[in-house]
């Protein structure tokens, strides 16, 4: 097929195909790179499809930049090809998703894995809190959209903001945007909570740790967001049918 031929010509290897983007591994000017290519969805009206694809590519790049500037680790962006809806970005070295990390830990020390995950939960909370305090909404917070990257022992990346030799990296910002309202931040947390609990059952205690450290990372104003979160949780239970 034409698309595969193009990828081969570009020396890219397909790593993963999500619902709306293909993730390739390749190089950019000799550097290891990840290429995220959004593709057309045949079920969508063409105008809507084009609009969403462009919007989400832009939103992703914007959100990555905003996060970096406030000290949240994200991949560097090397090139944005708006013709083919591709983002060429840094291939974050030696990393696994937080989802895989939690699953691995669960397998290897099932009894104690919740307490072993505490430092990670603290870091996640603090990072999301920091992000929200600057009115940056991720839009799709899940444990698959967070990476843990092993830091190099020396060089400019050594030391700094770390978690036991790992750095927390946020990715997949296609649904991201900027908003100051507690409602949007509450929804962002709600999405994370649901994703967390449905993917990693019996980790309610961990999510509480995330929220505790969210407040610390956010500072003043966090209480409003937590209250909103509570309200949003109740909405599902309160929904009444209107004729």
């Amino acid at each position: 097929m034409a698309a595969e031929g193009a990828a081969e010509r570009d020396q890219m290897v397909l790593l993963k195909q999500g619902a709306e983007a293909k993730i390739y591994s390749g190089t950019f000017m000799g550097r290891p790179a990840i290429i995220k290519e959004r593709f057309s969805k045949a079920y969508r009206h063409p105008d809507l499809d084009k609009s969403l694809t462009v919007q989400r590519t832009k939103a992703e790049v914007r959100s990555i930049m905003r996060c970096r500037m406030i000290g949240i680790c994200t991949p560097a962006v090397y090139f944005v090809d708006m013709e083919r809806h591709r983002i060429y970005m840094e291939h974050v070295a030696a990393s696994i998703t937080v989802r895989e990390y939690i699953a691995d830990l669960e397998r290897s020390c099932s009894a104690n894995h919740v307490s072993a995950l505490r430092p990670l939960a603290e870091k996640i909370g603090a990072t999301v809190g920091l992000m929200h305090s600057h009115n940056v909404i991720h839009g799709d917070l899940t444990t698959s959209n967070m990476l843990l990257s092993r830091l190099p022992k020396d060089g400019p990346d050594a030391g700094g903001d770390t978690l036991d030799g790992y750095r927390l990296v946020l990715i997949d910002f296609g649904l991201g945007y900027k908003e100051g309202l507690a409602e949007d931040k509450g929804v962002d947390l709600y999405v994370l909570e649901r994703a967390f609990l449905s993917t990693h059952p019996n980790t309610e205690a961990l999510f509480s740790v995330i929220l505790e450290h969210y407040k610390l990372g956010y500072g003043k104003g966090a209480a409003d967001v937590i209250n909103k979160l509570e309200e949003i949780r109740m909405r599902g239970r309160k929904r009444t049918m209107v004729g």
Partner: protein
Amino acid sequence: MAIETFQNEIFPDSAISVALFESVANCNDLKKLAMTGELDATLLNPSMIVDTFQILVACNKALHLDRCKKRVTRTLHSEVIYNLSPSKNISDAFRKFGMGDKDTSVLLVQIHSLRKGTLSEVAEHVQGEMVDLSRLQEVSDVNKIKKIYKVQEAELRVSTLLDAIVSRMTSKEFVSF
């Protein structure tokens, strides 16, 4: 002390050649030649460059826009200069990143076809000493670069300066700095 040439995976029919000169006596003349279009190269101020990769990112974007006929400036050469800047102001980009007529060093950059580059011919116009590209580390003005790209300490805790710079170069159409 040679011209270095880099390939581009995205445009495999093309390549980028770069050469660094110090103790240049005729920047003024070079500037005039560049303006009349007689020099087939981009003339950059090396103190604004922290690593060759920064140049490659700018060149790739320039070539991409050129090929899909969406260039912002008049020529491929000027597009490279514009792409280095974190701002959308063209004259500001030229002022900060282009070689100044009173400068004494210059970075020559040429995007050319894979088979044939003519940077060596352009180099003949330069009255100065060609040095190793590794000298860039020493001549780049890191404080000025941080200021112009508006890179703060918070970001440097989670990123290299180079990554911060290229990310800005790439995303300036979508975010203001």
